């Protein structure tokens, strides 16, 4: 019997984006002079040629069904010259060649359930991961948690009322695929993995799992006569790094996998150098379908920042000015010994000065 002829892939790689550019963007490529924002959700770019383009930005659910995609295409065809682009935060952008097209486009987007905003000093859409919908190691869901939180923050998406832009992310495990952010919501496991010793020998490449542990807490062992792995539970930091290469080492726990909140990550070089985010809250329950306890802490931080920070201070800039004691005081978050770094390089996170605010 002959095998069916398989189609050979065309290894075309990244497609040329020139074929998809809005004609005005193609024409003024590399030749833009400045932009301003006539209203939240709208960017107005002016080229050195004098040509102008208006961009309307709207939020999406990121995981989109084909009907939603077609609806967005209908809007683009009717109101926005058939071209769109997406931002890194899964917002969709429509480019139009005249100001007169902006208002009808906004009206149509809002009528169709796509909030217009996410520009300038707003809270933009949350960068997020896959969660229970698709990931093989998730401690929680992603799209659902983001939907619930954006429902609460939609006014801050639609307006530019923050001191500077605010980027949020959520991540379903400590690998943190959601990435660094001004405020990040990340699963934090609190118990060592539960090992199914019947499966380890067949499923896991044991030396690779041993090597994966950041604190050398895993060692090969014979359990019930079968080759398996054991964890020194006193050493274990519950990071979950062993779980992807060895699924029988279950790290997710419906009760003990909690949320931690991190603040002050900034990738931009503007003002201070880029910063990593810092953990400021933990022990928050994983409570689907709407995770109200997470929203409560995020909003608390967000609104203190909004009230306290000066113009152009990102969350990290604001904390640099007011200091950590006042951050914890103002947000009424408990500062505990678990928030003091003890990982390698931890001394750089201590206060090696007499710089203390009273």
């Amino acid at each position: 019997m002959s095998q069916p002829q398989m189609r050979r892939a065309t290894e075309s790689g990244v497609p040329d984006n020139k074929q998809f550019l809005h004609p005005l963007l193609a024409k003024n490529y590399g030749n833009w002079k400045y932009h301003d924002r006539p209203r939240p959700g709208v960017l107005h770019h002016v080229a050195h040629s004098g040509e102008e383009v208006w961009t309307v930005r709207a939020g999406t659910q990121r995981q989109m069904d084909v009907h939603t995609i077609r609806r967005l295409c209908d809007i683009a065809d009717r109101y926005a010259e058939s071209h769109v682009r997406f931002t890194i935060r899964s917002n969709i952008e429509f480019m139009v060649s005249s100001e007169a097209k902006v208002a009808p486009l906004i009206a149509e987007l809002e009528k169709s359930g796509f909030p217009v905003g996410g520009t300038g000093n707003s809270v933009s859409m949350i960068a997020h991961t896959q969660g229970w919908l698709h990931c093989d190691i998730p401690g929680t869901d992603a799209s659902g948690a983001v939907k619930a939180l954006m429902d609460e923050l939609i006014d801050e998406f639609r307006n530019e009322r923050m001191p500077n832009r605010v980027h949020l992310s959520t991540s379903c495990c400590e690998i943190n695929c959601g990435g660094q952010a001004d405020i990040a919501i990340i699963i934090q496991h609190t118990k060592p993995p539960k090992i199914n010793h019947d499966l380890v020998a067949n499923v896991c490449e044991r030396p690779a799992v041993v090597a994966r542990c950041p604190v050398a807490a895993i060692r090969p062992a014979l359990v019930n006569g079968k080759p398996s792995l054991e964890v020194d539970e006193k050493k274990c930091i519950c990071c979950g790094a062993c779980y992807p290469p060895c699924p029988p080492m279950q790290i997710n726990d419906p009760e003990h996998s909690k949320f931690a909140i991190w603040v002050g990550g900034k990738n931009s070089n503007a003002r201070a150098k880029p910063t990593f985010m810092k953990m400021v809250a933990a022990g928050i329950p994983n409570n689907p379908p709407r995770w109200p306890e997470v929203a409560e802490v995020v909003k608390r931080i967000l609104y203190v920042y909004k009230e306290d920070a000066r113009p152009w201070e990102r969350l990290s800039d604001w904390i640099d000015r007011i200091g950590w004691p006042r951050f914890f005081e103002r947000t009424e978050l408990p500062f505990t010994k678990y928030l003091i770094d003890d990982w390698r390089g931890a001394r750089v996170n201590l206060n090696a000065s007499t710089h203390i605010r009273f």
Partner: protein
Amino acid sequence: MAKQMYPTPMLDALETGPWPSFVTGLKRLAKDKDYVVDLLGQLEHSYTTRKGYWKGGTVGVFGYGGGVIPRFTEAKDEAGKPLFPAAAEFHTLRVMPPAGMHYNTDVLRKMADIWEKHGSGLIAFHGQSGDIMFQGATTENVQPAFDAINELGFDLGGAGPAVRTSMSCVGAARCEQSCYDEGTAHRTVINSFLDDIHRPSLPYKFKFKFSGCPNDCMNSIQRADMAVIGTWRDNIRTDEALARKWFDKHGMNELVNDVVARCPTKAIQLKEAKAVRAGESVSTVAVSDTHALEIENRDCVRCMHCINVMTGALAPGKDKGATILVGGKRTLKIGDLMGTVVVPFMKLETEEDREKLVELGHQIVDFFAENALEHERTGEMIERIGIVNFLDALGIDVDPNMVAQPRTNPYVRMDGWDEEVAKMAAKKKVA
């Protein structure tokens, strides 16, 4: 018409509220597809038990070793039968986006048609690495779905220990801060690595990201093994008409507090218009008849703040290019690492310039392939062997721009000091 829906009280709660709901989208797909009915069943099961039920496996397309994320259900009854059999296989195709994530409606509609036919009908724009994620196909349908996507001019991205899909910002297409042609650089570099993308054989993942200016909208410094971030060498450009317009609107308090005082190196000063300095490295612009800004560009670190605030009035210079930083990544395994400077500046204007970038990328990936331990990222490898050994292997001279400060401890063998001094002096003479 598809089969009857499972009750989904938890997911139903995500159909309330003003933000667009992916649950509503899934339910619409479920009207026509048993596949999505069962997907919703399993997702509700996850919400109820607070556990995930997907495991990986091996599924691919002919000729490639990666790019498909296999998912098989683990939600099974005691006899080992799937609780939600129609959605027992739910694989994702990672597809590389065009640079800057630009599309026309024609191509988006074609993608939707392909995925309605072969997959679940759920597409994510975009995953965290930048891929268009065609989410949910059976093992049988992965190949025909890929064939159709590939015929449309798109190709699979990376997964596993491979060069990964890349992202670049909107850049030159619509941003005045763009310092190089991000889209072309992105496409040129990534398409030179297709073998390393499609056939994973590196120690671990390797990510490139392309940002057009130091605002780094692609978050490359924290996430990319090799970050290409636009910058410029000459003076900040100024536009007096736009500067006056800005000042008329915002006034002196904002100029002082939000612009001048926020310069991280105090390179920018407020001066009386008649007192501004002239000079080769000085940019000046009047904001009114009486006052002007004066920038000492030798002190400027190209942070972008003043340009962000007074966009157009202030602008990046004309002698543009990029800084290359290597080694960014998140926590696992040794802790978070920022990318650090390996090439302070390189031009990226011509084909030859971009060829040099491609060469540098290949040198770094080759060195990584040969020297990294299994599951070690580039930044961790550099941490282990030391940046000087890494630079030495690449044939790149050290430069004070690569450090935040020189060493603060004396624990080092200095035998070769005199030779190094002579070598650097000789190089300086040639240059």
